[in-house]
């Protein structure tokens, strides 16, 4: 194997799967299953259908292992198979899901409260009228407390599905922007706008909660 391919570790894992390593397979399933179910659920009508899509995806993954070339990460490749299955299934169900209903209709909204900036016609228009709170004074134990993390979890639960999934994959699971784009079949621009909106809401909720301490 060529160790210089970017996804050498994934190719090694694929070899173990092809050799029938059940533990390696189940560890992979455990890591990806909850995101896979959420992603499938975006495109189909019920949780049961989403579960069928995920099961069909795993079979497709196993049957296609020989075609995985390591040109993308394994998890990206798996999600591409999944979104294809789920979208096709959704279409067959006669369920067409407009992008806006997944992505949210607030993608053009400003990340920051417009009243934080000086208005047109004022001197220094577009610059801060009141400076953001300086969070650097917030103690680490407060910033990472269960309550603060609960605020973020609450925002995550309230986001439109595609904003939530991009935020989860990027900032909770640590995927790269390219992986997320490929996995969810998003354009570069859409991936970044979705992430920007989702992060803006997290930041705003945290500021409302922590701002008085800053």
């Amino acid at each position, binding site marked *: 194997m060529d160790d210089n391919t970017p996804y050498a570790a994934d190719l090694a894992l694929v070899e173990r799967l092809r050799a029938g390593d059940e533990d390696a397979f189940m560890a992979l399933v*455990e890591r990806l*299953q909850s995101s896979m179910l959420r992603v499938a659920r975006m495109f189909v009508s019920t949780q049961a259908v989403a579960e069928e899509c995920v099961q069909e995806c795993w079979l497709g993954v196993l049957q296609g292992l020989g075609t995985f070339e390591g040109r993308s990460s394994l998890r990206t490749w798996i999600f591409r198979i999944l979104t294809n299955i789920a979208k096709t299934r959704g279409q067959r169900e006669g369920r067409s899901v407009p992008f806006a209903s997944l992505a949210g209709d607030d993608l053009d909204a400003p990340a920051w409260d417009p009243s934080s900036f000086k208005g047109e016609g004022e001197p220094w228009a577009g610059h801060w009228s009141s*400076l953001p709170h300086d969070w*650097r004074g917030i103690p680490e134990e407060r910033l990472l407390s269960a309550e603060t993390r609960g605020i973020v979890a609450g925002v995550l639960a309230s986001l439109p599905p595609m904003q939530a999934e991009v935020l989860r994959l990027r900032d909770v699971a640590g995927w790269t922007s390219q992986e997320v784009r490929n996995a969810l079949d998003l354009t570069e621009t859409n991936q970044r706008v979705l992430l920007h909106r989702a992060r803006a809401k997290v930041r705003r909720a945290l500021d409302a909660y922590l701002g008085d301490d800053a």
Partner: protein
Amino acid sequence: MTTDDITCREVVELLTDYLDGAIPPPDRARLDAHLARCDGCTAALDQLREAIRVTGTLTEEQVAQDALEPIRGVFRAWRSEAGA
């Protein structure tokens, strides 16, 4: 506050791209210059970084083990069929 031609209102919309290294070099240099002189935008960038860090401490919900058994079944059927 600065006299450059990019406003703070515009800067805050670019911070996700900025952190992703997705801003082309000339614009990035302009943004760096703005941030170097603007306490407000520096605080905004710091807030965004901290928001990302707190989000990163959340954990993926785990699917119950028995819900994974059908997938194990898929694997075993595939393995016996493939003769692996």
